[in-house]
């Protein structure tokens, strides 16, 4: 090979020239440049873009090497750079998406498969014990209820924040099973921070004896398993992500806890959640999980939802809020902590 100079750099917002080079290189490898990318690595040999890879939070994606530069282990260079970048940012556990045919390359670089959707995508993680540790944690949290035999069901909630609507769904589901596993989405992309959402759910559901509370962590509706829940994507991509998230849930997480059913509230308002419900109805039963939709709890002819609470919050309409949220949520919103959230909401609305 001729003499060449290898040069690697990270850029945050590629200019139109760089963007064209990146998209062409990705296209050559049957990939597209995604919308939620924080940083992109460009490896040049001479003037030509030889390899690229991107970071989105704790996810590595859009990794590609130009055809004429294959077989000189540029994937190793990309991964070294991306991994070091994640560590610099304090992320020690991270994930990557790739096509099933490229799984072997990343296995050799130390990534372990989490879940594979046949013929479309495989999610891998750098910590070989990541998923195992999560399953152990789930079992530990369920310890007090493990001797209960009978039907175990599940609900996954974001609860941004928890309302009487959520509570109605949770109580209804808890009535219909022997143990209810309630997962709170961990991804911190909502108005209310994860810690607050989780704490309010914990307080508001403390009276339900057969309930076990879990964190969704990286493995349930997270940036890793279901990125299009948080960003706008095409229908085809949302479908693949849903298959990944729901496949992982029903084949690995549910069996670990003996879960055979999942409940959700019907979703008349939010298109993303309503689409997710449609996909659950289609996918879960195929994996042996019964899916039940429970009609939304309504007051004054309107469904009680977290978005309704947020709307009232923006108007500081505390008397309306009081009628549709549990006391834990109300007390929080009326506190100085709640005041900070209102400020954040106002800023976001501008």
């Amino acid at each position: 090979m001729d003499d060449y100079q290898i040069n690697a750099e990270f850029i945050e917002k590629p200019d139109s020239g760089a963007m064209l080079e990146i998209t062409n290189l990705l296209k050559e490898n049957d990939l597209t440049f995604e919308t939620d990318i924080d940083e992109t690595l460009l490896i040049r040999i001479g003037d030509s873009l030889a390899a690229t890879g991107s970071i989105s939070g704790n996810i590595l994606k859009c990794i590609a090497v130009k055809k004429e530069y294959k077989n000189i282990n540029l994937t190793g260079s990309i991964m070294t750079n991306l991994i070091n970048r994640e560590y610099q940012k304090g992320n020690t556990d991270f994930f990557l998406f790739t096509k099933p045919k490229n799984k072997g390359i990343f296995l050799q670089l130390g990534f372990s498969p989490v879940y594979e959707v046949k013929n479309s995508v495989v999610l891998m993680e750098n910590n070989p014990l990541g998923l195992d540790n999560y399953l152990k944690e789930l079992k530990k949290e369920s310890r007090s209820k493990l001797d209960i035999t009978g039907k175990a069901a599940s609900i996954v909630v974001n609860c941004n924040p928890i309302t009487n609507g959520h509570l109605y769904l949770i109580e209804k589901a808890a009535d219909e099973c022997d143990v209810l596993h309630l997962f709170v989405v961990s991804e911190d992309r909502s108005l209310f921070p994860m810690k607050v959402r989780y704490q309010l759910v914990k307080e508001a559901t403390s009276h339900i004896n057969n309930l076990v509370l879990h964190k969704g962590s990286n493995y349930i509706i997270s940036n890793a398993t279901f990125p299009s829940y948080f960003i706008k994507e095409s229908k085809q991509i949302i479908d693949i992500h849903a298959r990944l998230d729901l496949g992982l849930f029903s084949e690995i997480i549910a069996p670990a806890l003996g879960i055979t059913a999942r409940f959700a509230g019907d979703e008349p308002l939010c298109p993303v959640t309503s689409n997710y419900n449609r996909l659950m109805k289609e996918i879960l039963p195929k994996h042996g999980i019964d899916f039940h939709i429970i009609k939304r709890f309504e007051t004054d002819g309107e469904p009680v939802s977290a978005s309704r609470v947020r709307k009232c919050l923006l108007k500081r309409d505390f008397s309306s809020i009081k009628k549709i949220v549990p006391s834990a949520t109300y007390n929080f919103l009326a506190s100085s902590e709640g005041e900070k959230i209102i400020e954040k909401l106002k800023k976001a609305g501008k």
Partner: protein
Amino acid sequence: MKIIKTGIAGTLESSDVMITVRSNSGKGIKINLQSTVKKQFGKQIIKVTNNLLKELSVEDALIQINDIGALDCTIEARLAAALYRGAEQSEYDWEKI
């Protein structure tokens, strides 16, 4: 030496190795080896690793080794760096490493 956080050293370039150490308090040593030359040198890599762990009195750690054909001295150097980082120590015991 006590591993208290995740430490990493090395690269995935040819003839190098990337080593990640994680805490595993009270649960001993666990080594996970990925190597392009595992068949030929797997045993030797584990031996070099265990010797240095003993030398530095590491009792509990999860060690992930991603080897792209590194020499023994490279493996030792990368492992020592990852361990010191994971133990948040910067006082090096030069006689041992």
